[in-house]
């Protein structure tokens, strides 16, 4: 056996104690949903994990009412210090149950256990710890003395980072004094249900957090509910547009974190080996199903060949397979719909003249898989240089001068993220200044921190999550 054929090192699922079916969590009670229950499957095996309830309009109303009651009677009047205690308690339980959450997330989403264990779940706990610290310091978020929560927050999150997106939404909302009705994505509802158990374990008052499972209809009913004060959504630009339309003319506050087509710009003086790691991390982290993925590689023409040679060599070492194996680098695509979309866009990219390359890698027979892929010879006008693929597919473009790099990087309807690789500090700062992207990483990529605001320009949405700006989104100036 060759050394690099590492023996299987699967993380055991015995730590999970899953139920066969999960109900809605409303007002601290598990209640049956009015809609038809649905199954969540594991994308790496297509095996059913559990059944989940579908919330209909009546359930949405019950959840919003429970949240309103909790806001009025318990959570709103509570001191910031006491709210902080609950959040710290939740953060600690998240850490205690970290391995269980990592396994559940990997099982339900298809992403490698390495990522859920080392990135997703630690960040989830960090987010709660960070926001817990804000709960009694709201006078300092920049809205004057005694800022006030909005009230009931309706939150809809995507399937790519199920628990982390829940944390980004729930932690600041609760710290600011809002109550929450949250809907996880229909393909990844599992960890939200485990989060409900954690809230119970922490003794969080009933109705402060309510969790509704279901598909798009449930989400639409939630954002349209008249007693919702604030809507926060992370997901596709198309759905974000629908939401903005639906709540136009109401008093509801809105933050949207939508798609992206991030440019990762490699200058010829870049630290080459680390830039390769950054490119790989930028587009193959979470199978590229990341809104801020560095999906467009802009590489200076004079180092194009050197970069591509090293990149391909590095891609050949990526290990695709069982997401629960601790050595897996690339897991499964989240759903058959997503796999179809990726396949269609890459085929189109090839038809438009792009040259497609993927390392030799065997795809498992069951489940949804797409090999890490690089498409070279892509022009700024190519479909795959413009549309968000949301998969492990890197489009490679070249540039000659910093100005051209900036122009090409900004030439997109999106504006969520960008990366700059250069050893020259002055160039990094000058280029970062001109990039129309909410997050610009220099000599690194896909790094997240609760103290740092995250959000987009243009069609990537508006509002910020994280940092002081993230707290402001859940508060209004006091009277």
């Amino acid at each position: 056996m060759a050394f690099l054929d590492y023996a299987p090192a699967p993380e055991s699922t015995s730590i999970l104690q899953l139920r066969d079916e999960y109900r809605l969590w409303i007002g601290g009670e598990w209640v049956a949903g009015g809609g038809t229950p649905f199954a969540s499957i594991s994308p790496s095996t297509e095996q059913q994990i559990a059944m989940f309830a579908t919330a209909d309009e009546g359930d949405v109303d019950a959840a919003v009412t429970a949240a309103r009651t909790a806001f009025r009677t318990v959570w709103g009047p509570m001191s910031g210090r006491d709210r902080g205690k609950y959040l710290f308690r939740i953060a600690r339980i998240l850490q205690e149950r970290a391995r269980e959450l990592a396994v559940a997330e990997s099982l339900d989403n298809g992403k490698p256990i390495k990522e859920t264990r080392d990135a997703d779940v630690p960040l989830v706990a960090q987010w709660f710890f960070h926001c817990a610290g804000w709960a009694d310091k709201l006078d300092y978020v920049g809205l004057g003395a005694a800022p006030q929560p909005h009230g009931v927050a309706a939150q809809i999150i995507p399937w790519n980072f199920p628990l982390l997106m829940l944390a980004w939404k729930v932690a600041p909302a609760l710290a600011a004094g809002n109550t929450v009705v949250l809907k996880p994505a229909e393909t990844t509802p599992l960890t939200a249900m485990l989060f409900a158990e954690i809230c119970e374990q922490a003794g969080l008052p009933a109705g402060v957090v309510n969790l509704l499972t279901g598909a798009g209809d449930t989400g639409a009913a939630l954002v349209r509910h008249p007693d919702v004060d604030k809507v926060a959504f992370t997901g596709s630009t198309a759905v974000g547009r629908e939401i903005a339309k639906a709540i136009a003319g109401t008093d509801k506050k809105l933050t949207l974190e939508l798609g992206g087509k991030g440019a990762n710009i490699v200058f010829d003086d870049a630290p080459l080996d680390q830039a390769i790691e950054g490119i790989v991390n930028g587009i193959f982290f979470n199978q590229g199903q990341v809104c801020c993925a560095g999906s467009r590689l802009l590489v200076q023409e004079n180092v194009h060949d050197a970069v591509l040679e090293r990149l391909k060599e590095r891609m050949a070492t990526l290990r695709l397979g069982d997401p629960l194996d601790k050595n897996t680098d690339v897991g499964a695509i989240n759903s058959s719909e997503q796999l179809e979309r990726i396949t269609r866009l890459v085929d189109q990219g090839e038809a438009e003249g792009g040259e497609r390359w993927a390392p030799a890698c065997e795809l498992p027979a069951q489940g949804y898989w797409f090999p890490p892929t690089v498409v070279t010879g892509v022009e700024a006008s190519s479909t795959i240089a413009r549309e968000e693929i949301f998969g492990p597919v890197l489009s490679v473009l070249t540039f000659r001068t910093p100005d051209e790099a900036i122009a090409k990087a900004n030439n997109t309807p999106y504006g969520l993220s960008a990366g700059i690789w250069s050893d020259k500090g002055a160039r990094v700062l000058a280029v970062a200044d001109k990039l129309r992207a909410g997050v610009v990483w220099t000599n690194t990529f896909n790094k997240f921190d609760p103290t740092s605001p995250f959000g987009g320009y243009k069609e990537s949405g508006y509002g910020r999550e994280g940092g002081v700006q993230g707290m402001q989104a859940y508060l209004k100036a006091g009277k």
Partner: protein
Amino acid sequence: MTTPSAALAPAERAVQLLGSDLSEVALRQHLEGLPTVDAVGLEARAAGLGTRSIKTTSKQAALDLVIRMIDLTTLQGADTRGKVHSLVAKALVPDASDPSTPRPAAVCVYGDMVGNAREALGSAWSAGRDDGINIAAVATAFPAGRASLPVKLQDTRDAVAAGADEIDMVIDRGAFLEGNYGKVFDEIVLTKEACRRDDGSYAHLKVILETGELVTYDNVRRASWLSILAGGDFIKTSTGKVQPAATLPVTLLMLQVVRDWERLTGERIGVKPAGGISTAKDAIKYLVTVAETCGEAWLDPHLFRFGASSLLNDVLQQRQKLTTGRYSGPDYVTID
């Protein structure tokens, strides 16, 4: 000050790469033109490689490989004939309870101990063959390297004459940090020449960079490249006398250098981390780093070594655990 135009010793590799009018200026420009290293990114990559989970059959194979890559070392002022004999005995029979245990690649001693090592090894001494144990000797006024050039060269010649198969030399870190790359280069070239035996063959030359004194990763890349250009067969991190000694990021960087060198010339250079690697768990992280950076071809004692003393016993305990299913304890492996 050095004269910028001074011609350097015409080492074959350097001439091929930089041209026949090899000078200090040409060398400096070449070294300073190498890609830079981002410390945060390098360390993150090393940490990522360190999370690989090597279990069951892979672990078994890895442990045996680690043993075969060890340069079992004693480098003390207090070394005696008895100590060297004891070290060699350990190399010959690492684990008496399991005759299938492989032997380390070499024993590594001070130059004046080569004769003792040879005597103790007897017929197990490789003397250039592939199936025995090599004798590696540190030379060139190890570990500081603070001696005149003739002394360093004589130190090397003595060790080679006594039978050393491998010479672990130190570079002049002072000269390197002064920017006097030519001096470092020439010393390596001359030391390589001092490794030449009467029959025309050469003792293998490992060049110790002492990365703990070079401090920055950019320096390590330049010193690695410089050592290869001057004719080194191996680049080695440390003497073990300076902290930090071998680290995973520094070793990863040196592996990237030898991978780049192979890409450029087709030639394979060895890497030897030394000092501070004392557990099987750490050693396996190095194997993962080697395989995922340079490929499996480098998982070979001719291209990768560990300079270590206490590592062997930890590997043996892990090996016993895999065989018997139980952890034994330090008294169930022999000391050297």
